[in-house]
């Protein structure tokens, strides 16, 4: 499974991309979609919702199981991708292109505390054993 070097990651298998304007975009990793299998339902948080770090804020469901998606950091939802709600299978096709929602961080320094690609790689490998 690919783990792009330019993204940050969480232990609950979200990827986090820092945008030029300081907002962060969130999706689930290729590893997460592989564990879940064929995606059939996505529910994103509404724009304007204030999220605490670690808060349950979205749901992805495959044929097999439902899985919560957590806010990687605290902030306010500024965008939500309705395309993945309409076509959940795009997450299986390219998990890093199929973004779910964008947060304006409460504290821009919070992103730095997330895992880098190497740390996430190590986590995925440890879970496989």
């Amino acid at each position, binding site marked *: 499974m690919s783990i792009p070097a330019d993204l940050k990651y969480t232990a609950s298998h979200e990827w986090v991309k820092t945008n030029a304007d300081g907002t962060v975009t969130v999706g689930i990793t290729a590893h997460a979609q592989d564990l879940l*299998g064929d995606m*059939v*339902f996505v529910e994103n948080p509404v724009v304007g919702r204030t999220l605490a770090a670690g808060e349950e804020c979205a749901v992805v469901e495959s044929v*097999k199981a439902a899985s919560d998606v957590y806010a990687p950091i605290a902030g306010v939802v500024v965008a939500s991708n309705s395309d993945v709600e309409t076509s959940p299978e795009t997450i299986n096709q390219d998990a890093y292109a199929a973004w779910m929602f964008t947060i304006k961080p409460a504290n821009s320094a919070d992103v730095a505390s997330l895992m880098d690609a190497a740390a996430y790689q190590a986590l995925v490998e440890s879970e496989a054993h």
Partner: protein
Amino acid sequence: MLKQTPLNAAHRDMGAKMVDFGGWDMPVNYGSQIEEHHQVRNDVGMFDVCHMLVVDVKGDDVRGFLRGLVANNVDKLTVSGKALYSCMLNPEGGVIDDLIIYFMTEDWFRIVVNAGTADKDVAWMQQQAAGRALTITPRRDLAMIAVQGPNARAKVWEAIPGSQAVTETMKPFNAVEFEQYYIARTGYTGEDGFEIMLPVAEADAMWRKLAGLGVKPIGLGARDTLRLEAGMNLYGQDMDETTNPLESGLAWTIDLKSERDFIGKSALQSRDINLQLVGLLLLDKGVLRAHQVVNTKHGAGEITSGTFSPTLQQSIALARIPLGIAPGAEVTVTVRDKQLKAKVVSYPFARNGHSLI
């Protein structure tokens, strides 16, 4: 240590994602579960069902033994090869397992039981057979491969030369011994096809031969969506030892009409029936799952099996709800913090390639 079927190496060679399924190392999919589902509805696929157990019961009065052991009536089996679906009940009327009984000869009946209940089933049968001149033999020397889909029979005929002549006119729910094979026109998908019992030593070669003929391997994920669309119960989910089979959509398999007594009969006759198993079609977006609460005007019920139906492209479920809620009624299902709208429908939802809703 997980138990392995004789096809374990073949699954790995074919790119399966393996999971722990009740102590067995089994393929959940070989890529996309949804594609595998459509493959079976539209063409042909094969399933490793070696984890299920064949049990041969032999002796002078096997029929008399089975009359008392299972809830369906083995006197329906008069022609060699005929198969019967039945529950095996405990004295309280709960379901120990559901199984298929094949009539071989008057002194030999063959029973196929679920993987997760196999040890318990055999122990129960042996206990009930005490004092009778019977042998009960678990046949772990037999493998089982299910080939299912509209093109399944043709592929099996190609794979096993000579099998066409003995199975072409055979009706569903019948089986025949052919050389080292026992070929049954049965399955768990709602499609035509065969379940083939064969020596363990030949299973890997047969699996690869079928693959070479274009039969795609199908994992347990698609097996579950196919059986649920077909409206077939899953033991441990839709019924178990604590549920009344008459509240589990299984009344058609319980013979209360004949004089014959069987284990669990008197308990069933004295129990009130308050619930029914129905189909649900989710009208809102989302996915129905087992154990979600169903709210009806006559009280609450529970989903026993739920999934996303690849054929219907919406979520479906089996649910145990109060009597008096008829097909067409609207109910709600509690999914996380929401009440989603669903419609009660009669099932099956889909069979033989298309939707029945």
